[in-house]
C-alpha cells in the first residue's frame, strides 16, 4: 500500500495546476463560458498539448497509458478550476467506451483525434424515462442490410450540442429494462435524422437532448458485439463516477479554501468572523468532509479499474454516496459562512456549490448509489 505520487505523477499534477492557475481564473472562466460552445477552444488545445486528452489511452492506440491515479489528478485539478471543456464527455466517457470495447479500426480512427483535441465525442446513454438506470433503453436499432437504423430519444447528453461524434446506446433485442440486448453505435453528430437540442446546465456547462429519427449507420458503427454493451456501459459509468468524485474533491478543496479565506478576512463586531468558535467548528466539519471525500475518492479510483464488477460497483457507489453527502454539507456550510455574498454569481463560491450539486446528480445521486450499495449487501460482509 502506497499513497505517494510517482515523480511523473507529481509533474503531471504540477503542470496542469500551473496551467489552470495562470489561465483559468474566475474572470477568464466567465469569458470562456460566454463563447459559442460555452468553453474555451484555446484551453482545449492546451490540454491537448499537455497530453491530457491522450492520458488514459494505451500507448499503442496513440495515448499515454495513464491509469486511475493520473485521471484522478487531472479531474481534481479540473474541479479546482471549475473547467468548462468537454474532457469528461469526450475523454472519460466516449473515450472510455472506445478503450474498453472499440475494435482496432475504431480505435485508430477515433482515438488520435480525441487525443489531439481535433475530435470531441459524447456518450448518449441516458434516456428521458430512465432516470439513473442506463439499462433503461427504449431507443431501438434495427438491422438494415449490413448496417442499422436507429430511432429514439437520448437525454442529458453532456456537451452533446458541440461534439463531432456520438456514441449512442440502443436496444437491439430484449425488453425495455433488460440489461441484455443493448448495443453501442458510433453516430456522426451531423448525420441525417440526428437533431440536437442544446442547453446550458445549472452549473454553467452544456448538454443536449438528442432525437434520432431513422438514423442510418454502417456495420462498422457497432462497438463490440451486438446486444452485449451493458458490461461496457456499466464499467465506463463506474470509471466515470470515480472521475467525478475526483472533480468534486477539487471543488471541495477550493470551497474550503475560499471559505477559510473569507473567515479570516471578513470583519464583523470588530473582529474577523473566523474568531468565533461556532464558525471555527463548522469550518472543521467542512475540513473533515473534504478529507473523508478525498479518502473515498482514492479508494474508488483504485477499485474502479478492477475487473471484478461487483467489487468495483460497491466501491464506486460508496464513494458517490460520500461525495453526495459531503457536497450537501460542504455546500451548505460554504454558502452559510459566506453569508449574503455566497448567494451571488459575483463570488466564486456559489459556482462551486452549483457544480458539486450537479456532480451529485450525474450518473446517480447519493440516494441511488446508497440503494445500489445496500442491494449489494454493503461494504462489510462475513467474508470482507
Amino acid at each position: 500500500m502506497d499513497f505517494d505520487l510517482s515523480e511523473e505523477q507529481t509533474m503531471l499534477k504540477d503542470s496542469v495546476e500551473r496551467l489552470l492557475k495562470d489561465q483559468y481564473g474566475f474572470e477568464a472562466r466567465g469569458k470562456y463560458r460566454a463563447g459559442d460552445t460555452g468553453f474555451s477552444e484555446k484551453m482545449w488545445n492546451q490540454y491537448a498539448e499537455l497530453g491530457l486528452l491522450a492520458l488514459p489511452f494505451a500507448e499503442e492506440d496513440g495515448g499515454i497509458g495513464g491509469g486511475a491515479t493520473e485521471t484522478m489528478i487531472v479531474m481534481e485539478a479540473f474541479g479546482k478550476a471549475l473547467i468548462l471543456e468537454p474532457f469528461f464527455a469526450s475523454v472519460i466517457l466516449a473515450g472510455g467506451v472506445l478503450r474498453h470495447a472499440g475494435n482496432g479500426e475504431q480505435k485508430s480512427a477515433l482515438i488520435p483525434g480525441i487525443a489531439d483535441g481535433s475530435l470531441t465525442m459524447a456518450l448518449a446513454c441516458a434516456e428521458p424515462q430512465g432516470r439513473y438506470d442506463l439499462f433503461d433503453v427504449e431507443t431501438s436499432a434495427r438491422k438494415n442490410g449490413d448496417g442499422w437504423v436507429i430511432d429514439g430519444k437520448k437525454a442529458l447528453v453532456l456537451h452533446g450540442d458541440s461534439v463531432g461524434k456520438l456514441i449512442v446506446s440502443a436496444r437491439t433485442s430484449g425488453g425495455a429494462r433488460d440489461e441484455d440486448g443493448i448495443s453501442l453505435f458510433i453516430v456522426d453528430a451531423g448525420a441525417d435524422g440526428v437533431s440536437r437540442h442544446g442547453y446550458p446546465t445549472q452549473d454553467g456547462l452544456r448538454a443536449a437532448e438528442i432525437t434520432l429519427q431513422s438514423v442510418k449507420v454502417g456495420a462498422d458503427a457497432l462497438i463490440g458485439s451486438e446486444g452485449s454493451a451493458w458490461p461496457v456501459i456499466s464499467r465506463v459509468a463506474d470509471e466515470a463516477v470515480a472521475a467525478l468524485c475526483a472533480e468534486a474533491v477539487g471543488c471541495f478543496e477550493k470551497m474550503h479554501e475560499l471559505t477559510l479565506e473569507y473567515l479570516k478576512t471578513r470583519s464583523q463586531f470588530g473582529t474577523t468572523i473566523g474568531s468565533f468558535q461556532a464558525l471555527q467548528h463548522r469550518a472543521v466539519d467542512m475540513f473533515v468532509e473534504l478529507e473523508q471525500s478525498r479518502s473515498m475518492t482514492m479508494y474508488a479510483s483504485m477499485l474502479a479499474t478492477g475487473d471484478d464488477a461487483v467489487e468495483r460497483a460497491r466501491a464506486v457507489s460508496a464513494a458517490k454516496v460520500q461525495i453526495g453527502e459531503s457536497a450537501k454539507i460542504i455546500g451548505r456550510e460554504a454558502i452559510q459562512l459566506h453569508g449574503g455574498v455566497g448567494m451571488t454569481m459575483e463570488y466564486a463560491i456559489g459556482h462551486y456549490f452549483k457544480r458539486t450539486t450537479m456532480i451529485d446528480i450525474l450518473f446517480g445521486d447519493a440516494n441511488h448509489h446508497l440503494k445500489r450499495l445496500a442491494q449489494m449487501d454493503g461494504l462489510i460482509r462475513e467474508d470482507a
Partner: protein
Amino acid sequence: MDLRFTEDELAFRDEVRTFFREALPPSIRENIVAGHHTSKEELVTWTRILHDKGWAVPHWPVEHGGTGWSPIKQYIYLEEMSQTPAPAPLAFGVNMVGPVIYTFGNEAQKSRFLPRIASLEDWWCQGFSEPGSGSDLASLKTRAVRDGDEYVVNGQKTWTTLAQYADWIFCLVRTDPDARKQSGISFLLIDMKSPGITVRPIQTIDGGVEVNEVFFDDVRVPVENLVGEENKGWNYAKFLLGNERVNIARVGVSKERIRRIKELAAQQRVGGERMIDQAEFREKVAAVEVRLKALEMTQLRVLAGEAKREKGTQDPASSILKIKGSEIQQATTELLMDVVGPYAMPYIPEDEIDGRNEPSIGPDWASTIAPAYFNTRKVSIYGGSNEIQKNIIAKAILGL
C-alpha cells in the same frame, strides 16, 4: 388548554379559504405552483383584490385598515393564503415599514403613506444591509447630513430585494458619526425617484435578480421623511426586525411544498415503482412533516402568547421559528431535488420559461427545482442569520 380551532375559527378558515380560491386569478396560482416568481403586475392585482375585500393589512390597527382579528385568525389567514397558494403581500410595505409608520411616525406620514402601502400604490423596499455590515447591522456607514430642510444621503445599501420595482425605500442612515454604533442611526423614508439613486441588480445563484445594490450619491431627502426622532432609528429597526421574525417560519409555504412533493413523487418512477411507494422516500418526507407540525404548534404557542406580552416586545422563542422554519424550507427543497432526479440539470432562464417557445426539457415542472434549492440557501442567512438567532437564544433565554 384546547389546541383545536374553535367553531368560530373553523368558520373563519372556511371563509378565507373559499374567498382565496374564488378570488385569485388562476394564472397567478398556476405560476406559483410551477415554482415561478410572482411578477409585479400579479402582486399588484392580487393586493388590490384583497384591498377591495378589506383584507390587505389585517394585522394593522383598525383605524388604518386593519381587521381587528385575533392573532390566531391572522395566522389562519396567512396560512390559508400560502396554501392556496396565493402570493404573499409585499412584506416591505405591510409588515415592515407600515407598522413602523403607524407606531412611530407622525400623523402626516401616517395619512400620506399608509393607505398607499395597503393598496400597493407604493412599492417599498428595504435599505438596511450594507456590504460591510451583514450580521453586524449597526456598523452601517451610509451617511445623512442635515442641510437646511433636507438630509443629504451618501452611501450604499445591498441585498435590497425587488428594488427594481420600488417607489420608496426605507433606510437606516448614520446621522451622528460620533455617537456609539447604535446611537447615531436614523430611519429615513426616501423616494426612489430622487436624483442620485442608482440601482444595480445582483444576480443570485439561482439565476434570478431578486436583489440589488442601491447607491446614494448626494441624494436630498426632506426632513419630513424622518421617522420618529433623529438618532433613534435603531429602536425602530429592532421593532421592525422583531416583526419580521414572526412570519418567518413559513409553515404554510412548507406545507404546500410538501403536498407538491407528494404529488410529483406519485408521477416519478424509480426502478419500476412509483417514488411515493418507496418506504425510504415516504419516511424521509414524513420525518420533515413531523418537524413541520412541531414548528406549527410552536408558532401558535408564540402567537397565543403575544397578547400577553408588552406591546412591541418579542418572545425570544420566536428565534426558534426562524431557525427551524429555515431548516425545514431547505429540507423541502432537498426533497424536491430527490424527486426530480437528473432533470434538475437543465438551466432555463425564467423569462424563457414564461415565453414557452421551446418544448420543456424533461418534465415541465423540472426546471424551477434546482433554482429553488439554490435560492433557499438564503433563508438561513437573511433576517438575522441562524447563527445570530442562536446567539440571541443563548443570551436572552438561556442566560449564557
